[in-house]
């Protein structure tokens, strides 16, 4: 049965309402204790939400590789880092050139995008020559190499363990400082919407269908005369560029970055986010990204709560390690709720509607979400 809410216009309307609500949050005074660090108009709450949006955008770009194309990449953090570091380094290099700040800012953004495009193309072209676990290992190796380069302070540009700071003189004024957190919040929201639309476009295109088909049955796609390699490479590069966009937003928001964002652990976090939200669902990546970021931040606060300190060691130590709780949560989701948060909510709404839908084939679920 097609209701208004499942039709195209209905979905557009829901999406529009969510974006509008998210956009006016900084103007409202909503306080959800335990979830947000303060009322929504405060800088603390806004920057946390903006960070969550950017992580969600990054998770969405990872969803393209892992959820849509079915490729297990361990190197996606490299592109996020390329966006963040690329923007900061280029701004730093171009700042003394004497060009107007706005021009410098735009040139730096375009060059960073080109950098991500080239990097994604090179790594993808090499890594996609192998599949499965070997693909995962090649991407891991490249990411590891990038991480080493960044930590070594290569060319005196990446700042080693200290990381890089953004050159604020050439950044437009409305993106600088705590006073303008609201603008950065809107920027992050804009990036999330942009990445979402790009993912939607890639997935709905003929190319997206070919990629999804080669995930399900590569041999058959080849027999039909199509080339999985090319479409996979396109998706890989698209995800790399989108990931770097999220990285640039991260750099503007935090006005600095450390090598942590290029580690394999950071990519594993992305994997956790996508699976937590629900593999194959676009909304899963977004919900997963936001839920994960909020949990990560709030669990750290929980760790310093007074009542935790009074517990015996057996309970106190696991509860005061956010990553332990998140890791175990992830294990439970993988074992008992393979569809993640979004899959779970789908199952519940179906049951409530009284419809006993037969289990859909995996491929269909992906397209539908």
């Amino acid at each position, binding site marked *: 049965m097609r209701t208004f809410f499942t039709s195209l216009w209905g979905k557009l309307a829901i999406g529009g309402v969510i974006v509008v609500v998210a956009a006016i949050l900084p103007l409202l005074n909503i306080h959800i204790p335990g979830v947000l660090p303060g009322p929504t108009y405060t800088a603390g709450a806004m920057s946390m939400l903006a960070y969550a949006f950017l992580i969600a955008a990054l998770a969405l770009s990872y969803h393209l590789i892992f959820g849509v194309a079915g490729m297990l990449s361990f190197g996606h953090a490299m592109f996020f880092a390329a966006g963040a570091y690329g923007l900061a380094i280029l701004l730093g290099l171009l700042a003394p050139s004497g060009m107007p700040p706005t021009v410098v800012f735009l040139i730096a953004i375009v060059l960073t995008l080109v950098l991500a495009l080239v990097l994604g193309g090179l790594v993808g072209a090499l890594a996609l020559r192998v599949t499965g676990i*070997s693909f995962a*290992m090649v991407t891991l*190796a490249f990411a590891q190499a990038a991480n080493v380069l960044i930590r070594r302070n290569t060319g005196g540009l990446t700042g080693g363990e200290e990381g890089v700071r953004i050159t604020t003189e050439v950044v437009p004024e409305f993106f600088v400082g705590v006073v303008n957190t609201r603008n950065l919040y809107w920027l992050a929201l804009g990036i999330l919407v942009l990445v979402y639309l790009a993912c939607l476009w890639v997935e709905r295109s003929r190319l997206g269908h070919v990629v999804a088909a080669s995930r399900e049955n590569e041999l058959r796609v080849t027999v039909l005369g199509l080339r999985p390699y090319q479409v996979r490479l396109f998706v890989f590069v698209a995800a790399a560029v989108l990931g770097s966009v999220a990285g640039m937003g991260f750099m503007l928001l935090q006005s600095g970055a450390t090598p942590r964002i290029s580690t394999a652990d950071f990519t594993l976090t992305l994997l956790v986010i996508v699976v937590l939200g629900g593999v194959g669902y676009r909304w899963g990546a977004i919900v997963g990204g936001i839920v994960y970021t909020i949990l990560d931040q709030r669990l750290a606060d929980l760790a310093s709560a007074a009542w935790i300190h009074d517990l015996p060691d057996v309970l106190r130590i696991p509860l005061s390690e956010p990553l*332990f709780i998140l890791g175990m949560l992830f*294990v439970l989701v993988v074992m008992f709720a393979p569809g993640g948060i979004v899959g779970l909510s789908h199952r519940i709404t179906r049951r409530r509607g009284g419809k006993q839908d037969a289990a859909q084939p995996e491929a269909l679920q992906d397209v539908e979400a």
Partner: protein
Amino acid sequence: MSIIILLLITGVGLGALYFLVASGLSLIYGLMGVLNFAHGSFLTIAGFIGWEVGRRVGDGTWAGLLIGMLVGVVVGAVVAALTELVFIRPLYNRHIEQVLVTVGLGLASVALFEGIWGTDPIQIRLPGWLGETTNVLGANIPNDRWLLIGAAIAVLLLIVLFLQRTSYGLVIRAGVENRTMVTALGIDVRRAFTIVFAIGGAAAGLGGVLASVYYGQVSAHQGTSLLIFAFIVTVIGGLGSLTGAAIASVLVAVIQQFANFYGGWGDFAVVLALALVLLFRPTGLMGKVKH
């Protein structure tokens, strides 16, 4: 000349450490198709508990170290077998999910170790002999390298003996070759899974205690950092091949030592080696060709 000998022997020593981790990874992947991201945690927990027991028996004595090694082997085997039974077995034949579970366990356990033993590395005391050097053809080799090399050779021999001479070893070898056929012949291959995990865990556990000897400290991140190199070694050697893992461990570690000494780009050389091997021989040095 003495520098080359020094680099070679210390490289083989580091390779021995890689092999202790990579042998289990390779066997597990070969039989079950699971890349075990929790393997580093087996190593770390065995390192910690081995050290805790060893220092109570006798801090900085041979008795303490040997008992620590024994405890490490047992802890590694038990933890690995439990992991297989509780987390991997319920996801029978769902490889991606199995890998994801090990990823989650790896992340969670490191956080737990940090909670228990702190984030900073703990310096440990060792028997005096291990801190000294032996002169080989003019090169002063640190003595702990001999312990590492000896242990790795012993583990290699034991695993090969087990695989070649016991009936379970036969099942495991057959399972690596063709699991469907083994199952079709009515052999319960799942028991072999647990055994392979236990063997891999035992080797990693020994590796955990020896890693603390090599680095002179125990830390919550020891396993994770070794794991990445062990992965690379496993892929270069050919997933599923024990001989490949042994050869690749030594190769990778020696290349790393030389590159580190001449220019300090050891980690980079290893990554480069992996990229080259995968481009020209995607199945690895000793890996079987896919059918």
